[in-house]
């Protein structure tokens, strides 16, 4: 014969009379306070900070959600910007020596034209406004043309490369 619902409920309700030894709850608070003090003496600062952080995130569900969303959005933005930059300038970050040489060769052609042009050259290509290059600059940047081939002055160094002898 199965135990009916009513009897089962009654038996379960009677379990509330299962109580701890007399005086237990009076001692419980004292034990709690003692443990608390002992724990405070034992706990390192990082553990306390971690608990507070955990409690903060556990309680502030909304804030936590926003924090994670904002952090994720920021990471995505940075990743997107980097990807976009790399797509706009492919290979801009690393250039081989061959590429550098090719780039130099490409720049050599207008230099030759400038060098072969008369002094106080005015460059009037498709660009506007007109760019007037001073003679002094032309003298310092370009070597005289020999046999129709431009030559760069290789031993010219920027001022910043000079060793700082004086402080």
């Amino acid at each position, binding site marked *: 014969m199965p135990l009916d619902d009513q009897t089962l409920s009654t*038996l379960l*309700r009677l379990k509330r009379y299962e109580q701890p030894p007399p005086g237990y709850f009076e001692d*419980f608070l004292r034990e709690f306070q003692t443990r608390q003090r002992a724990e405070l003496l034992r706990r390192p600062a990082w553990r306390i900070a971690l608990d507070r952080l955990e409690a903060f995130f556990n309680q502030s569900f909304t804030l936590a959600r926003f924090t994670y969303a904002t952090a994720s959005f920021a990471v995505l933005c940075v990743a997107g910007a980097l990807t976009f930059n790399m797509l706009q300038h492919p290979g801009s970050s690393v250039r081989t020596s061959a590429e550098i040489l090719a780039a130099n060769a490409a720049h050599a052609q207008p230099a030759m034209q400038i060098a072969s042009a008369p002094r106080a050259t005015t460059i009037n290509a498709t660009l506007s406004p007109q760019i007037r290059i001073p003679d002094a600059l032309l003298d310092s940047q370009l070597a005289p043309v020999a046999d129709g081939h431009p030559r760069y002055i290789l031993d010219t160094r920027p001022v910043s490369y000079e060793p700082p002898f004086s402080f």
Partner: protein
Amino acid sequence: MSEELAPNEDAQLVARTQAGDPAAFDALVVKYSPRLYGLVYHMTSNHEDTNDLLQDVFAKAYRSIGGFRGNSAFYTWIHSIAVNMTINFLKKRGRRLTMSLDDMDSGVEHDKEFIELTSSTNPVREADLSELQIRLNEAMMKLSYDHRAVVTMFDIQGTPHAEIAKILGISEGTVRSRLFYAHRQLQNYLEEFH
């Protein structure tokens, strides 16, 4: 349920605790320890484990109370901590059965339902009520932790479905279905004895 009828009092005690008054938290400990003891005790069936767990529950609550924003009642919040910590403890402990529930409070003899159950007209009397209680405790320990928590809160402590749902973070429907399933299981366990 007196705890649920005085949420303002709890809110004041919580605010005072958050402001750095430890005596206010002591008042919360005094107020909730008997009820939480029952909750943990009927889930673990062991007095020593219950004592340790209850200390840990209040310690955790004290550490975390700074972050308690009052989105739920303190009653619900502290019960959630107790249930979660007890279930985690039981998972770690495994299926070790520790029965120490043989000390009934003398108040049971004056309980109306007890008198009715042990009356000469009730068949339960012949089956020896104390033996039936022991079997019931064993059967309780065979329930899953989630089912045991629901039975403890509803059948033993008289917590309403809605409050259990809030504490466990589940729907009232789930509470009812867990109760139904747990009752069937308990009846099956007790059937052969009865």
